[in-house]
């Protein structure tokens, strides 16, 4: 519903001020979604996939950007390999908006953790770590997922 793939039966979803899914084209170029259940097309190489999606999202200098990302995420050796031939670990690295929490910690300024359709927490990675008294976002995520609210209370 947040990405506009599903029309809500009731209620409204607003993203960056746009009503989803009716005004989705105002904001879709600023959003993306990554999960272990969504894969990139298997038969294209990683470079080809990134080129196509880069163009769809209006990325400038796509070829240069792919090279930069290849170096940042240590993917340069894999760029010309078909996506379907990657190991599970390599696929995870390929995902630009990764669900890998250490990358979230490194790349994101704001993290929203949801549970059963409701926002459980919303803050910067540093403040989340401090609030839960944890060293990694994986641990914070597990605290929320397993309902260990006491971790947050104890830390506070």
């Amino acid at each position, binding site marked *: 519903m947040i990405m506009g793939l599903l029309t809500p039966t009731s209620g409204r979803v607003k993203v960056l001020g746009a009503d989803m899914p009716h005004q989705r084209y105002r904001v879709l170029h600023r959003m993306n979604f990554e999960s272990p259940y969504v894969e990139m097309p298997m038969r*294209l190489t990683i470079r080809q996939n990134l080129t196509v999606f880069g163009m769809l999202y209006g990325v400038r200098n796509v070829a240069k950007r792919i090279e930069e990302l290849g170096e940042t995420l240590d993917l340069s050796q894999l760029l010309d390999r*078909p996506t379907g031939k990657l190991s599970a670990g390599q696929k995870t690295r390929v995902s630009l908006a990764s669900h890998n929490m250490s990358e979230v910690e490194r790349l994101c300024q704001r993290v929203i953790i949801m549970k059963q359709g409701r926002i459980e927490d919303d803050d910067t990675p540093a403040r989340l770590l401090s609030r839960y008294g944890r060293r990694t976002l994986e641990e914070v995520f597990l605290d929320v997922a397993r309902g260990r609210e006491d971790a947050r209370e104890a830390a506070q």
Partner: protein
Amino acid sequence: VSAASESALAFSPRRVAAMMLRYWYLLRSSWPRLIELIYWPTVQMITWGFIQYYVMQNAGFFARAGGTLIGAVLLWDILFRGQLGFSVSFLEEMWARNIGNLMMSPLRPIEFVSALMIMSIVRLAIGVVPVTLLALLFFGFNLYALGFALVAFFINLMLTSWAVGIFVSGLVLRNGLGAENLAWSIMFLFMPLTCVYYPVTTLPTWLQPAAWALPPTYVFEGMRALLIGHAFRADLMLHALALNAIFLAGGICGFLLLLQAARRHGALMQTGE
């Protein structure tokens, strides 16, 4: 709304180019797919070419009607392969489970459909152009000698193939790959009614209005008028064009309604069977 947001709202040739690039990469990555494009048109043309050769030797009428069977086969292939070229590019997204990725990207449905239309012409060119050259080499039938008439036939057949392709894609989007067979078979529903190999007058009188409601019927009648009577029937082409406008509008409306229904029912997230 920022300037970037406004530009994302407009039709983007770059996004259309991105999708064409994707299909080009797919075609390039698989030689069996390239062979498949040319295989059936060649087999069909050779079979019908020999049949025509045989009946020309045994029937005075067909001797005068030189090329009508091969002409019909080649024009039928434009119609059938045009629709298939559109639908298979779409099905590639379903097979790759990529529809969800595309539908949550800034790609607009009209850009997606535009890319599929252009790719249907590319796939058709790869499949049918070599076959028209073989028809010239083996049977002395020069499709290109039809000149302007060929352009009129081609435009009308492509418009019909897109209208059907768009509608079928909507059905697959809404109903999943369980509806995939429609993409391969729906055009054969048109075959007897559009009178590919025989004049409309061959049909029972009560069925003829149904035949005249389909744009390709006018093209195949026009082809026979040209090859047998040596007359280009512009009136038939204009009728076909008007009907195609209705078919195309219907196909696009159907696609958008089915896309909306797919969004309501969560079908975009479950694109399997």
